[in-house]
């Protein structure tokens, strides 16, 4: 008996040791995977930080009041002048127009999906809204171009309006998706209370559901605007490029900020003569970076305002 108790005690110890500690191989794999997961995050941060740093560092060189308030009219070669005013106005007009087209359609579709949506049509709409978020931006531009050339003839397709239509194709599904999420958050008790008071359904939706979720809807719309404001490709092929100020979206080409960045980059290095003092060889690159800084500030600002609106104005539902 006494000979068998010693190994039993030993076995108990060994079992305990086995249970409280992971064996080295498994622990090593666990460590390696932890390092890899942290590494993946660090790796993704490298381009983000590098990009933001470059944009801020190169963009601030020409980011002056004059840059914001002058156009490119009459600017050629390496002249130390020229700005982005016409592109800012163009972006403002085209984006506003796109929002005017897509917000009503998007909001009503979201209302349909949340309040009425049942049956095959609602299922199809839900599915294709998701599919539409994946339409390539350049295809949206081609669609707007094809639509307007078939209606107005070959010359009618280079205006701000065409660009706005292209952007709204990209914007509507984003608006629908975010508004739908917000409308779903409205508690059913509010609707029921309204029905119990004998309020008709449409008035319930307008006065109760929309009123309750207005902060969330604003956020959704702002984020959708932030998404399309940086779109370049559809505007390159629809609104086109111009050097001058144009505020009329129904007539003539319109410059926008992203297209401005692209066209400045495309012009490349200016060939300056030896010792020519008023010629800056890298002026186009510097303008592109400054416009990129402005565009990023606008997009980040819209994102920030969108999040703050939800935080400040959403009703306290306790």
């Amino acid at each position, binding site marked *: 008996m006494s000979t068998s108790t010693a190994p039993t005690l030993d076995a108990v110890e060994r079992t305990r040791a086995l249970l409280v500690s*992971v064996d080295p191989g498994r622990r090593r*794999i*666990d460590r390696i*995977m*932890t390092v890899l*997961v942290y590494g*993946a*995050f660090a*790796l*993704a941060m490298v*381009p*983000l930080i590098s*990009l933001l740093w470059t*944009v801020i560092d*190169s963009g601030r060189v020409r980011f002056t009041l004059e840059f914001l308030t002058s156009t490119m009219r009459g600017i050629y070669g390496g002249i130390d002048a020229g700005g982005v005013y016409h592109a800012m106005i163009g972006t403002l007009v085209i984006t506003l127009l796109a929002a005017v087209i897509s917000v009503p359609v998007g909001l*009503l*579709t979201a209302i349909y999906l949340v309040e009425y949506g049942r049956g095959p*049509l609602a299922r*199809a709409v839900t*599915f*294709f809204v*998701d*599919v*539409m978020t*994946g*339409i*390539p*931006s*350049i*295809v949206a531009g*081609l*669609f707007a171009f*094809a*639509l307007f050339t*078939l209606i107005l003839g*070959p010359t009618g397709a280079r205006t701000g309006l065409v660009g706005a239509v292209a952007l709204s194709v990209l914007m*509507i*599904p984003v608006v*629908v998706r975010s508004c739908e999420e917000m409308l779903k958050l409205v508690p*059913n008790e509010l*609707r*029921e209370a309204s029905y119990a008071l*004998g309020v*008709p*359904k*449409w008035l319930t*939706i307008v006065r109760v559901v929309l009123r309750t979720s207005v902060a969330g809807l604003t956020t959704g719309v702002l984020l959708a605007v932030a*998404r399309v404001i940086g779109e*370049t*490709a559809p505007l*390159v*092929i629809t609104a086109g490029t111009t050097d001058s100020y144009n505020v009329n979206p129904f007539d003539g080409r319109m410059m926008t900020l*992203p297209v401005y960045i*692209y066209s400045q*980059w495309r012009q490349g290095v200016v060939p300056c003569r030896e010792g020519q003092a008023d010629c800056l060889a890298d002026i186009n*690159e510097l303008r592109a*970076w400054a416009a990129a800084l402005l*565009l*990023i500030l606008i997009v980040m600002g819209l*994102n920030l305002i969108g999040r703050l609106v939800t935080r400040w104005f959403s009703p306290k539902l306790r």
Partner: protein
Amino acid sequence: MTTTDSPPAPAAVRPRQRRSGDTERGFSRVFRWISTGAGALLLGVLAAVALFLIVRAFPAFTAGAEQLHDAGKVPGSFGSLLGYVGPLVFGTLLASVLALVVATPISVGIALFISHYAPRRLASIIGYVVDLLAAIPSVVFGLWGVYVFSGLVGDLWVWFADVLNLILGANVEASPTGRSLATASLVLAVMILPIITAVSREVFLQTPKLHEEAALALGATRWEMIRTAVLPFGRSGVISAAMLGLGRALGETMAVLMILSPGLSYSFQIFDSGRHTTIAANIASRFPEANGLAIDVLIATGLALFVITLAVNMLARWIVARRKEFSGAN
């Protein structure tokens, strides 16, 4: 208010399932029509995109080889529209698949970091930071790619090609300018990281807590818990996230247009410049100066892109939708 009679008893319990008809009068009915119309309009827009592209591209389908060369501006070496679209589709798929191969493991890593590794308080901030990547306009990515990134990786590609040639005896060519498909794919990978991360993160967070706790109770390490509980649960979610990322990469224009120096060939020399281009970049670079049949040819290539992305996105969404129904989480 006699117009809205008090609803019958079952409707009071579930008023949102009340079906149409008798209780809806006056403007309520109009409002239903308006909102239903908006939903139908959305489907109409998608159909119109397809329809107008087909109508505008039709002349390019029927044009002869000579017409395509003269008026359509199709380079001389291609005899037909299909021959021209082929290398474009090849370049598009190659760039996107490379981007996907790079981005998916990193995105899954970030998603796991947010859902299972980072402290709860930090996780939401990190989520915002990753979303910040999605907010940066593609033209800014292009600018950064062409002025900063391609210069950095150009030397790396040359060195890499030398090593491959020396060791494997392969015939890899590399351009020191870095304006090659590999560079463009890496930038595309950065651009599709946020969407893949966001979708996978949502799926990982839905893993049933009981499964995770059961794995840990059986003595699993954190990684073993993830491998046995989280990843099997999230597999289809990650697949569809990757396909959504692929859809983004296929249609991305500006970054590719600015970084890649274009060419039209079926070549796997991804480190060399002037070999490939993508459909979207090709359209954006040629469209502003095109007219007549040349526009129709470009719209025809755009139609090919539309069909490819639509198929990829529909497949991805179908996987997500199917998963929702059978997921054990709810």
